[in-house]
């Protein structure tokens, strides 16, 4: 757009001429100026004084409570809500960047349609026309409607989707995105179901722990709740009497969690579960610590050969012994499962081994240790449970077979998230009508026929069941903090409107608008910590406080074994033979871009990655020896090939990674999604195939091998650090830690 001619420009031009320093009094030319008296300002507005609104952050599935600073109807700053039980006033980088989701210049300014999918020729149309089109398609489709949404969809919209689908006889809405898929949310819940009798996310309180063994869990970066775990970690390091805990991180590539650990164990990728099992085995065999613990360990496991596990994982047996001792003799010990562990082909067993360790530690249910995320406090409050990988594949099959007539996509971006082999785009070609509700055109909306942009979370209504929730159930509330920036409409309202015209759905969705539905939901919650009675008071308190949580936190549930697990650990089977594909592939979500959804926000793109200090790019991390073998340096572009795909990206020499492993961050490689995301970096999901773990619930991404070939091309790495200074600098410098 044309740059406005400001007074500054005028002064600069003046400086260039003979005279310098044009003084005040010279106004730039303008056709007109509007003067509008502020006779009737909105109720809560005081000039120069900000108003704060409570809402919920939706940059990841956790659901931290936020307060947004509003002045003159503009959202200026997001802070954590101090009263919110999950984050208690703190917020992570992605949460802070939420303002740029709201004020993104590439957002759709209104509904559009695409007569040719993928053409990027979007024709604007009126809302009435758009909603009408949607209605017609839905009415004609009957029960052959599929809904694909993601884990940050508001509970109320998910509820409405579910009711709609049930009413018309269609399949349940599918919740699948890369964040929860990559982190194994479904597997975590499934294994909890199997072990403890309830499908819930496990949570681990760390603030009073003595010993934490993290099996590849980047709990401080992009784990299940980076903010909450951050708070826990702060407490962990500042326990009474100077106690600062002992954290061991077992992962092949150092994340920020490993950076702050007391001991980093660079084990071979895919062997996290094996190592956990070996520790249980050692505790059982050596009868470490108390007799109870040893007995429990013996009942949980048997027949593992610690020596062969030591060889397979590249962790010496003495080290395993040491870890087992440390864990068993601690009074408060916690074991954390990581995404790479759940991403193996035998993730369920691996996870069971880690949970076994927690049970042995005996801290389950205590102030420190393993608990299960509490269930929803009310039937009316729903949480979008991430679907199993196999369920997602089933829907794709249905789509490919032509059994889906209308596909509604909300919040999810499967065209970007999923490996190509999953076949989403092929399947979508067989769906006659695809409607997307994306506020900004992403890779999936590119293949839609109609886009009815939803409001972004700062402009929208809703609620989120905090997930995972550590000590108490909490329903985080979401309300618009500004009037919509662009001409968008709430998807829930559209759904309610459309449902009115479909007889089957009209009864199931009788509400005139979403707020009425939300109010009913809140009423059913009843009074919580904020007290009050009656719908008006409850609704007001819900908005004011930023949600609902119980007046007094319930006793932490002590998960107990419902059934004895059969922990049968095997060596991981890697895709790709060792000769042809000599390196292990280790993918990880970028701490700033997470699974790719952060790529549209310049604050996240432009901030340096904490470990490599690179911004704006994708890179391939190689150990210095590996780089030397291949003859590459920083910025040299290499081609990384797996049995499933390939990509090219520049090298970033990284000292804290196994020499036989290469690591690539997720998040870049967008072809749409706005100017900040588009056409930069690569999406490493191209290297992953469509393989699930043995139970079919989780994408198996962490047991791939790759080969690397230098291409001879170079690019400048956008490093914030001076790498020469940091790596060579003062060679004998004494470090104050």
């Amino acid at each position, binding site marked *: 757009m044309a740059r406005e001619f400001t007074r500054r420009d005028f002064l600069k031009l003046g400086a*260039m001429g003979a005279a*310098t*320093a044009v003084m005040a009094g010279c106004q730039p030319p303008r056709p007109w100026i509007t003067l509008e008296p502020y006779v009737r300002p909105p109720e809560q507005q005081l000039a120069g004084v900000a108003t704060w609104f409570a809402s919920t952050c939706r940059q990841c599935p956790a659901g931290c409570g936020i307060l947004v600073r509003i002045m003159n109807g503009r959202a200026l700053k997001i802070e954590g809500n101090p009263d919110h039980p999950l984050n208690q006033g703190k917020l992570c980088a992605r949460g802070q960047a939420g303002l740029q989701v709201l004020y993104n210049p590439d957002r759709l300014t209104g509904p559009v349609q695409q007569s040719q999918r993928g053409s990027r020729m979007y024709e604007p149309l009126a809302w009435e026309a758009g909603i009408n089109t949607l209605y017609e398609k839905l009415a004609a489709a009957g029960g052959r409607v599929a809904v694909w949404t993601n884990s940050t969809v508001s509970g109320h919209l998910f509820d409405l989707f579910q009711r709609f689908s049930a009413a018309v006889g269609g399949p349940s809405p599918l919740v699948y995105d890369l964040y929860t898929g990559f982190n194994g949310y479904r597997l975590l819940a499934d294994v909890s179901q199997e072990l403890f009798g309830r499908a819930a996310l496990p949570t681990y309180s760390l603030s009073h722990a003595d010993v934490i063994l993290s099996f590849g869990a980047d709990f401080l970066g992009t784990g299940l709740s980076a903010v909450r775990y951050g708070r826990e970690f702060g407490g962990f390091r500042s326990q009474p009497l100077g106690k600062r805990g002992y954290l061991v991180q077992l992962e092949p590539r150092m994340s920020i969690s490993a950076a702050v650990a007391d001991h980093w164990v660079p084990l071979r990728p895919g062997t996290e579960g094996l190592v956990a099992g070996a520790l249980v085995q050692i505790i059982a065999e050596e009868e470490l610590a108390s007799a109870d613990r040893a007995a429990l360990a013996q009942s949980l496991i048997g027949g593992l050969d610690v020596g062969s596990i030591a060889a397979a994982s590249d962790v010496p047996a003495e080290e395993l012994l040491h870890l087992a001792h440390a864990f068993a003799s601690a009074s408060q010990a916690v074991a954390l499962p990581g995404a790479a562990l759940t991403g193996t082909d035998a993730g369920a067993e691996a996870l069971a081994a880690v949970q076994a360790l927690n049970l042995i530690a005996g801290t389950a249910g205590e102030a420190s240790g393993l608990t299960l995320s509490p269930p929803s406090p009310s039937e009316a409050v729903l949480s979008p449970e991430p679907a199993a990988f196999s369920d997602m594949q089933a829907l794709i099959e249905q789509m490919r077979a032509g059994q889906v007539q209308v596909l509604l996509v909300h919040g999810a971006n499967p065209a970007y998230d999923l490996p190509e082999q999953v076949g989403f785009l092929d399947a979508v070609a067989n769906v006659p009508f695809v409607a997307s509700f994306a506020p900004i055109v992403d890779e999936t909306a590119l293949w839609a026929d109609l886009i009815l942009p939803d409001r972004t979370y700062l402009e929208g209504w809703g609620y989120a069941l905090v997930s995972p929730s550590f000590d108490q159930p909490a329903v985080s509330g979401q309300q618009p903090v500004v009037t919509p920036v662009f001409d968008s409409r709430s998807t829930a309202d559209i759904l309610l409107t459309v449902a009115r015209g479909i007889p089957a759905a009209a009864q199931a969705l009788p509400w005139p608008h979403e707020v009425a539905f939300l109010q009913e939901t809140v009423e059913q919650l009843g009074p919580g910590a904020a007290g009050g009675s009656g719908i008006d008071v409850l609704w007001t308190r819900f908005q004011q406080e930023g949600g609902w949580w119980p007046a007094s936190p319930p006793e932490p549930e002590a998960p107990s074994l419902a059934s004895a697990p059969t922990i049968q650990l095997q060596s991981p089977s890697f895709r790709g033979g060792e000769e042809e594909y000599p390196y292990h592939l280790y993918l990880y979500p970028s701490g700033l871009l997470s699974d790719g959804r952060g790529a549209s926000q310049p604050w996240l793109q432009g901030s340096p990655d904490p470990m490599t200090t690179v911004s704006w790019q994708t890179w391939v991390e190689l150990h210095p020896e590996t780089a030397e073998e291949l003859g590459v340096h920083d910025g040299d572009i290499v081609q990384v090939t797996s049995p499933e795909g390939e990509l090219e990206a520049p090298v970033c020499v990284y000292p804290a990674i196994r020499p036989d492993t290469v690591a690539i961050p997720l998040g870049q490689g967008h072809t749409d999604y706005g100017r900040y995301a588009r056409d930069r970096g690569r999406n490493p999901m191209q290297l992953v195939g469509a393989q699930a773990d043995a139970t079919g619930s989780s994408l198996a991404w962490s047991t791939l091998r790759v080969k690397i070939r230098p291409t001879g091309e170079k690019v400048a790495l956008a490093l914030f650090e001076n790498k020469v*200074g940091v790596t060579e600098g003062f060679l004998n410098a004494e470090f104050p830690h």
Partner: protein
Amino acid sequence: MSVNEVEHPVWRRPLLEGEDLAEQAEHLKRRHLLLDPKFPWEMNDDALKPMYRTSPSFWVIVVALSGLVMMGAITWFRQIYWGLGITGLNRPIYWGLFLVNTVYFIGIGHAGTFISAALRVLKIEWRRPISRAAETITLFGLTAAGLSILMHLGRVWKFYWLLPYPNQRQLWPNFHSPLMWDFMAILTYLTGSTLFIYLGLLPDLAMARDHTVGWRYRLYSILSLGWRGTEKEWAYHKTALDIFSYVIIPVMFSVHTIVSWDFAMSIQPGWNSTIFGPYFIVGALFSGVAAVIIVMAIIRKSMRLEYFLRHEHFDGMAKFLLILSFTWAYFYFSDYIVPWYNGEPVMKVVFDVLRRGWAAPLWYLMLFCNLLLPVATLWSRRVRSNTAALVMVCIYIQIGMYLERYFIVPVFLGYNELPFSWGTYIPRAGVLLTIASFAMIILLYMLFSRVVPLIPVWEILEGQIFQGLKRIGRALLPARSEPH
């Protein structure tokens, strides 16, 4: 007879007979300008004629230089409009070519002041024909330096805030800041140099007025301020020049000391060295004298000033250059050995980079240009008598001194106590502006030489009056009488 004739030392000369006195006199006259008088009207002609001589090649060069200056102006406008981002500056290297140029241009200006003021005070007579040509370098060098300072400002249109003027907000500039002292010192030096050169020009402007017509006549009439050449005017003139000479010498010393304090007063490793004051002065004289030699050689050829500029002048300057080379080496050594000895970590890294890192080729080149080459060549009479060789050496000295300033500014700034924030400098827009600055100086000099007589005829006449040949035994010796 050419200046390049090698003269034999005394013990090799043949015994003198009667006519040899004349031969001796011829020798001496050839070698010393002041012993080789011409009629004043002849000298005036020789001084004024070059101003009219503008050959086609002159204009070609002027046009080319103007083109470069225009390119510089456009680049500067672009920089003002878009911001300093078009340069290669970054964090932590906040100063780059602009500061290097500033220091360099102020540096080469010192020779002018030295020759016209210090040599005058020391009564070294061979300074006479070259003083104005050298002062002109000072004048335009300072102009370029001032422009370079303006170029490096982030918001140049506010530069006048550095002037202490009463204002409504009661704000004064910060007199604690070395840049403030810099500003004052350079203004003083520029003003002083301008007045000094103008003062010295007055008699010659009057002479020009009396010998020209048309626009030149009008110009010189105004500029010569009605100089009539009466005894009183000459007396006042001499007094004024004497005072100026004495006064501008400390100004010259203080200016480059203050410029060096831009660096020495900071805490940047490599900059906060207490020896920077005298070190910079010596460096300035070094590069300045070399610049004067180059300019002298050029104008001697192009303006046909062979009568005025002789071997003795080049010889004297070259010997001075040799001394300066040793002095510079001494200060450079002092500046390096102290931090090397105390093993300061950042300087250790810097020395490593200079000795065998990426900067090594440039560093060794600098040492070659500033130390090795002058010391190896300038002792030799052969080299000093060969103008081409001498000019080559001086060009290398310019390169060496420019490199020296380049090391101090953008190279040292790249290293500090927090290695995460080290940096590298790759000059961009600064290169164009540097080329344009040089072009501007040369252009102004060329135009100046066609508007103002570059040779101070009255000074030469004065010298020739007081100089003579005195016979002592069988030898003829140059002798000088003191004016009252």
